[in-house]
C-alpha cells in the first residue's frame, strides 16, 4: 500500500548481473520493480549481494549487464551505508551537514537541518565531537542523520539500525516510518532483522544466497500507521513467520 506518490522515485531492474574479479557471479539476472513511494524491505543471508545491489541502484557500481532504470532519471538519493563512513577530520555536525554542503546549501540552513536530524537520533550533545570520540552506535547514528538531512526522494539504507540498542532502534523505526509517511519517499531498506522488515515495510523481499534471486516477494498488509502497539499484533507475527520460513529454506 502506498501513502503518497508526489516527487518520489520508481525503479526497475532488468536482468541485472554483476560479478567481481576472481569470484563467482554475485547477482545473476535479477529482475525487480519498485513502485514510487514504496517502502521495500530486503532480506537475505550475509554475503548474498544486498549491499552490492544497493550500490548498483545508487549508481556507485555499474552492473556487468542488464539495466537499472529510475524515474526520474537522476533521483535525489541518500544512502546509509553498512558502515558509518564518516570523515575523521570533521566534527559530528560537519559530517551530518556534508551532503547539504556538497549540494550547495548555505551554512545556516544546512547546520539547522543537520542539527535537527542529530537531535532526532539523540546526538544533540555530541555535535562538536570527532568521529574517533564516538561509540560505534553513535557513529552509525551520525551517518543516519547525514542521510536524512538531505530530504531524499530515494532512500537506500543498509542495515542502518544494526548497531543500536533496541530501545533507540524501536524509536527510530517509528520515526523513520513517520518520515516516510510525511515525505513520501521511496525507501529500500536492507536489514537482518525479520521483525524489523515486517514492522517497517510495505513490501518485503527475500534474496537467495547464490545468485541473489528473489525467492519471496510479499506485500506487508498492515495499517499505515505503525506504532509500538503493532509489535505484538498477530498479523505482524504471521508476516514474520512467513519471511522467517523463506530465509530458513535458503
Amino acid at each position: 500500500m502506498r501513502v503518497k506518490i508526489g516527487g518520489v522515485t520508481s525503479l526497475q531492474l532488468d536482468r541485472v548481473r554483476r560479478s567481481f574479479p576472481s569470484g563467482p557471479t554475485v547477482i545473476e539476472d535479477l529482475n525487480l520493480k519498485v513502485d514510487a513511494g514504496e517502502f521495500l524491505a530486503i532480506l537475505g543471508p550475509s554475503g548474498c549481494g544486498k549491499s552490492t545491489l544497493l550500490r548498483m541502484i545508487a549508481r556507485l557500481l555499474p552492473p556487468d549487464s542488464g539495466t537499472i532504470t529510475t524515474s526520474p532519471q537522476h533521483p535525489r538519493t541518500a544512502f546509509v551505508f553498512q558502515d558509518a563512513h564518516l570523515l575523521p577530520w570533521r566534527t559530528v555536525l560537519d559530517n551530518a551537514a556534508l551532503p547539504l554542503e556538497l549540494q550547495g546549501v548555505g551554512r545556516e540552513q544546512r547546520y539547522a537541518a543537520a542539527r535537527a536530524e542529530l537531535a532526532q537520533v539523540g546526538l544533540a550533545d555530541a555535535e562538536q565531537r570527532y568521529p574517533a570520540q564516538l561509540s560505534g552506535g553513535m557513529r552509525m547514528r551520525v551517518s543516519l542523520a547525514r542521510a536524512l538531512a538531505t530530504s531524499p526522494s530515494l532512500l537506500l539504507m543498509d542495515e542502518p539500525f544494526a548497531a543500536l540498542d533496541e530501545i533507540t532502534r524501536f524509536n527510530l523505526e517509528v520515526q523513520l516510518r513517520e518520515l516516510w509517511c510525511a515525505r513520501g519517499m521511496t525507501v529500500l531498506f536492507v536489514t537482518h532483522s525479520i521483525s524489523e522488515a515486517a514492522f517497517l515495510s510495505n513490501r518485503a523481499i527475500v534474496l537467495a544466497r547464490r545468485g541473489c534471486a528473489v525467492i519471496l516477494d510479499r506485500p506487508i498488509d498492515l495499517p499505515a500507521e505503525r506504532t509500538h502497539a503493532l509489535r505484538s499484533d498477530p498479523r505482524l507475527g504471521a508476516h514474520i513467520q512467513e519471511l522467517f520460513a523463506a530465509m530458513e529454506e535458503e
Partner: protein
Amino acid sequence: MIKRVLPPSIPLLAVIALMEVAVRQGWVASYLVPTPTAILKAMVESRVELAEAFLKTSAGALLGFALSTVGGISAAVLLSSSRTIQRSFYPYAVFFQTVPIIAMAPLLVIWFGYGMRTVVASAFVVSIFPVIANTLTGLLSTDPALRDLFQLYGASRRVTLFKLRFPAALPQILTGLRIASGLAVIGAIVGEFIGGQGLGSVVDVARTQQRVDKVFAAVLLASVLGLALFGLINLISAITLRRWHASEQS
C-alpha cells in the same frame, strides 16, 4: 616547555662537547673540523656578512619551497586524475630528481638570469619531487567508501579534491613538505654556488680560504633555516592533524 626543549638539546650538547674535545685533543685535525668555539667565534665576527647571507638564502629557499609546494601539489593532482596521465608523466618527474643542477648551470643562468631567480629555480627543481610523490600517494589512497559517498551526493571532481582527497592526504602531503623543506635549502645553496650570493657564496669562498670555521658556521645556518621550515611544518601538522590523525596523537 622544558619537556619540549630539553630532549632535543641533549644530543646537541653532547655533539658539541665531543667536537670540542676531539679537536682540542687532536683526534681530528683542526683544519678539517673546527671546534664549536671557533665556529661561534666565526659567527660573531662575521655576523653582518652571515646575517645578510642567511636572509638571502632564506628568501631563495622559501620562494623555491613555496613554488614546489604549489607546483608539486598541482602536478600530483594532475597525475592522480588518470592512470594514463600518471604513466605518461610521472616518470618525467623523476628527471627533476636525477639531474645534477651544476650540470644545468648555464641553462639556469641564461633562462633565469643571475642571482635570486636562479637560486629560486634551483631550490624549486631540487625540492619538487618529494611533494609530487607524497601528494600523489596520498591522493591515490583515499578510502574508496568515502569517494562513493562524495559521488553519491553529486560532488564534482574539484569539490571531491578539496573536501575529501586533500584532507585525507594531508598527513602524507605534510611529510612530503618536510622532505621538500630541507631540499629547498640545499637547492638554494647549490643555486648560490652558480648565482653567487647568500650562504652558498659564503661556503664557496670560505672553502678556498681554508676557513673551516666559517664553512661550518654557514652550513649550520643553513641547517637552522632547514630546521625552522621543518618546525613550521610540524606545527602545521600538529594543528591540523591533532584532532583526528593517529600520527599526531601520543
